[in-house]
């Protein structure tokens, strides 16, 4: 622990902030248990019906380990694919949606009433809500895409008119490959294999940086969320510009500067191709709404400015205030508390030192801060 460089202090605060916003382990495990239970029910059901295999698997931020608690809400979004085994010649988009709904209804009916989740219909998804838990699951129906085996799927558009190709597993595998060094290091420290590190765990600097970016984005676009860059766009540009080996603060700072360079231009259009499905352009909505590209650039500029301002010092209270304006006062306040507690524990374990000349506290050099208690009222 060191309070000797702005980067280290801001890294401590940013790290604690996104840890607070990340999905708690107990919740993640509970969500996994729930969707596996749906998966098992469907596997049995389709087996009994003699129909092709049904699968449920996570996608999106839960799959790549970049979950951030949504602004103003206490419950997490768990995105899942409900992949039924039909061929596209044998099922329409609307029928796929309807069939998935029937399957999920049957699942709910198979449970005792008190355990059954609530169910809601979206344009193309079905949502299961768990009464006591702090999450809901959005299930997106899909069917295999034989042209992009083994993981490619076809999903319906929101109007239930067209098939769109998608490959969430492929994307997640690509994203993971961009943080391989971090995974290897984490696995070594945890004395486990890389393959055993769960997808949803944020163990790499890349994942943590994406969480920082997403949170800053959520607040920056709070008044106009429709203009916010989609998470998949943010994650892709972040992964492309990611440099491993830096502390979190510097990682995010460098990323914010470099991300725009990975936006391609093609015939006057902005393109951020899906790395596993290059025909898909994550920036395609910027074509119809050019002001969103302008706001994207302004957002990254604001992020850099917010990080620089926080590093301006003038008191940790001011640092916390500035970070709180950018990332939300509550999680940053909790991060500051964690820093205080960590400092106290460092002194209690005899490792806290004070540099002579300046008084700067840390663990690397200087006068050891001896045991004592602060007297008086607190």
């Amino acid at each position: 622990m060191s309070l000797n460089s702005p980067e280290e202090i801001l890294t401590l605060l940013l790290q604690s902030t996104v840890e607070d916003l990340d999905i708690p382990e107990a919740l993640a495990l509970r969500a996994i248990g729930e969707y596996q239970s749906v998966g098992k029910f469907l596997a049995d059901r389709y087996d009994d019906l003699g129909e092709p295999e049904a699968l449920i698997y996570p996608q999106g931020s839960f799959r790549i380990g970049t979950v951030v608690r949504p602004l103003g809400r206490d419950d997490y979004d768990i995105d899942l694919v409900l992949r039924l085994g039909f061929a596209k010649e044998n099922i329409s988009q609307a029928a796929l949606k309807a069939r998935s709904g029937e399957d999920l209804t049957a699942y709910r009916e198979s449970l005792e009433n008190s355990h059954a989740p609530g169910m809601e219909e979206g344009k193309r998804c079905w949502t299961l809500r768990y009464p006591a838990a702090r999450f809901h699951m959005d299930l997106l129906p899909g069917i295999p895409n034989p042209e992009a085996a083994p993981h490619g799927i076809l999903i319906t558009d929101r109007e239930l008119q067209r098939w769109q190709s998608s490959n969430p597993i492929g994307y997640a595998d690509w994203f993971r490959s961009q943080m391989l060094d971090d995974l290897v290091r984490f696995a070594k420290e945890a004395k486990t294999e890389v393959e055993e590190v769960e997808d949803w765990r944020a163990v790499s600097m890349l994942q943590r940086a994406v969480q920082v970016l997403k949170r800053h984005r959520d607040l920056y676009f709070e008044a106009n969320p429709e203009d916010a860059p989609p998470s998949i766009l943010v994650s892709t540009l972040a992964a492309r510009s990611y440099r491993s080996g830096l502390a979190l603060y510097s990682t995010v700072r460098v990323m914010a500067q470099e991300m725009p360079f990975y936006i391609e231009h093609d015939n006057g259009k902005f393109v951020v191709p899906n790395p596993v499905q290059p025909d898909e352009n994550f920036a395609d909505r910027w074509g119809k709404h050019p002001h969103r590209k302008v706001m994207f650039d302004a957002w990254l500029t604001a992020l850099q400015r917010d990080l620089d301002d926080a590093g301006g010092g003038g008191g940790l209270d001011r640092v916390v205030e500035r970070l709180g304006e950018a990332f939300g006062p509550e999680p940053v306040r909790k991060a500051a508390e964690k820093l205080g507690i960590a400092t106290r524990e460092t002194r209690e374990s005899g490792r806290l030192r004070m540099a002579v000349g300046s008084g700067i506290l840390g663990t690397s050099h200087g006068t050891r801060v001896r045991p004592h208690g602060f007297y008086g009222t607190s």
Partner: protein
Amino acid sequence: MGRHKPSAYRHLSVAVQAAALKRDFPRGEARVERSKLTWVGELQPSVLSAPYTVRIDYRLGRRPRVKVIDPELEPPPERTLPHSFTEGDLCLHFADDWSEDQLITKTIVPWACEWLLHYELWLATDRWCGGGHEPRRSLTSESEGR
């Protein structure tokens, strides 16, 4: 780590305390006048913290008194400064934590830096995370310790 009562009255002279402070904080000012030490120096508990001008007054027979003279510590409205005496001195230790055979520069000053760090975090969080003790009645410097 317990402290047993020394059989003889062991103490460091005010001059020795001054010299040690000067050595550790060359930019600070230590003055000894009529057996009283006054030290003024600048402490900054973290590189993003504000610099604080701190004064320590000390004479044998009394605990060192530590005060922040710049900036003036103004608690936010409806909040009282934690771990400080009514006169504004910082409460850095219990009576047992410090004795006159210890160097102020190795004890009181690091504790003051710690206090300043926790003070800044307290301003931001409204929680004192530095640990410590809450007495049953309000405190004036005469009633605490020696």
